[in-house]
């Protein structure tokens, strides 16, 4: 059920787009739904960020994997236990760009004996990296439809992505790599019983949806082609707020509806790790709890009465009782 429901949902979305295109609902599919989805993405994303920004961090809880900066003759590890903002930025950049924490992934094996063993498992890191970077490059390549003139980086990416110069239109390496990455991430959840047990529909749905988006895009490029000049004209109409319905091949509307679904679903799902990773207190705090006091914003304002105040109040009585005063 956890597997079937998201699969049915993805197929239903694709069927809806095919049916809509067959019924001539080009304005709904090409204009209304993309606008609503993009608006949902923007507002949903902003709302999530707002929610996280107003959530206090009570404790200084960075995860550390190295020596904290301590005494001068002990070598501190600035990337594994950053003591400064610069160190935090460096650690965060490596986490976001190359998924450093996944590199340390381990897997547990229970062997007859029974023996429990742990071994390094870099597959999640490797396929995660392949998937995310391919997705980014594919996203950037799509700017040829959004900007006129086409920005410089698109030609550069296309050249290197199509380096093999096989098939026509030229086959893009990222197309193969994103499918490889997402298939491996999907297989990882399905093959291992332990992973399958903890996987939910919300874990499978994004994988299937993004897989379907990649397949529909590739289908549109290599198999069931559409007039891409008209696609660009359509998108230019959308972004200048002069939208028009265009009769473009059904593959385009399938791709567009799936992308719209992804955009609308994004802020309300696990995919928000895109923004969330920056808000992880275990990553974005410096390991400097011995140097700076981390004040919990939750702490109530406690009215403090110092000894000096006390002494000032009872000065006369203390004097007459012969108790020495600090003030004197």
């Amino acid at each position, binding site marked *: 059920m956890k597997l079937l429901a998201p699969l049915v949902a993805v197929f239903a979305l694709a069927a809806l787009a095919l049916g809509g295109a067959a019924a001539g609902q080009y304005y709904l599919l090409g204009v209304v739904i993309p606008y609503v989805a993009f608006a949902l993405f923007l507002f949903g994303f*902003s709302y999530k960020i707002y929610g996280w920004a107003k959530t206090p961090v009570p404790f200084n809880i960075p995860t550390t994997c190295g020596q904290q900066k301590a005494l001068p003759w002990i070598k501190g590890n600035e990337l594994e236990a950053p003591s400064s903002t610069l160190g935090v930025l460096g650690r965060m950049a490596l986490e976001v760009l190359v998924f450093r924490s996944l590199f340390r992934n381990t897997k547990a094996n229970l062997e007859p004996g029974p023996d429990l063993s742990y071994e390094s498992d870099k597959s999640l890191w490797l396929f995660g990296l392949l998937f995310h970077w391919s997705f980014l490059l594919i996203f950037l390549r799509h700017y040829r439809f959004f900007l006129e003139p086409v920005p410089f980086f698109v030609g550069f990416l296309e050249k290197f992505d199509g380096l093999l110069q096989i098939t026509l239109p030229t086959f893009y390496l990222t197309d193969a790599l994103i499918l490889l990455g997402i298939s491996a991430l999907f297989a990882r959840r399905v093959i291992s019983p332990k992973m399958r047990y903890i996987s939910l529909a919300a874990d499978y749905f994004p994988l299937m949806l993004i897989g379907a988006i990649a397949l529909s895009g590739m289908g549109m490029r290599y198999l069931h*082609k559409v007039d891409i000049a008209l696609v660009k004209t359509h998108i230019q109409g959308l*972004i200048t707020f002069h939208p028009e319905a265009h009769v473009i091949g059904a593959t385009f509307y399938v791709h567009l509806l799936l992308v719209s679904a992804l955009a609308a679903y994004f802020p309300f799902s696990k995919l928000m790790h895109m923004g969330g990773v920056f808000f992880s207190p275990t990553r974005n705090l410096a390991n400097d709890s011995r140097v700076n006091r981390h004040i919990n914003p939750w702490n109530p304002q406690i009215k403090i009465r110092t000894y000096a105040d006390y002494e000032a109040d009872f000065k006369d009585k203390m004097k007459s009782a012969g108790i020495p005063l600090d003030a004197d």
Partner: protein
Amino acid sequence: MYNLKWILPPFLAFLAILTYPLWSGPKGAMPELAKPKGEACVESATWMRANHMQLLDHWREEVVRNQSRVYVNQAGQRFEKSLTKTCLSCHNNKQEFCDRCHNYTSVKPYCFECHVDPKLSEVSHVQ
């Protein structure tokens, strides 16, 4: 709200980049293409717009590898499988036909690394 000085600038930059196509200057409409000379293309214009590259690729393979030089279209008409002799005889303005759409959609075909644009060859003859 906490740590706004760290959250707000990157988030606003993210929004700005994301919505850049919406607020950055004028946009390009569908380019005007030069009118071809002939009456009709080898296949329907709508089909050609989406699939011409595959037709040309197929033609090249047929001619170079199989010596098959005659193309019979859906309507049964016969054409020579030739970019220069068939296509370019009607679409005789590469700059205002081929290039406009290809530039618009950032497509860089390598047809003319071997084939000659007839317009350009005329110019070079004059010189």
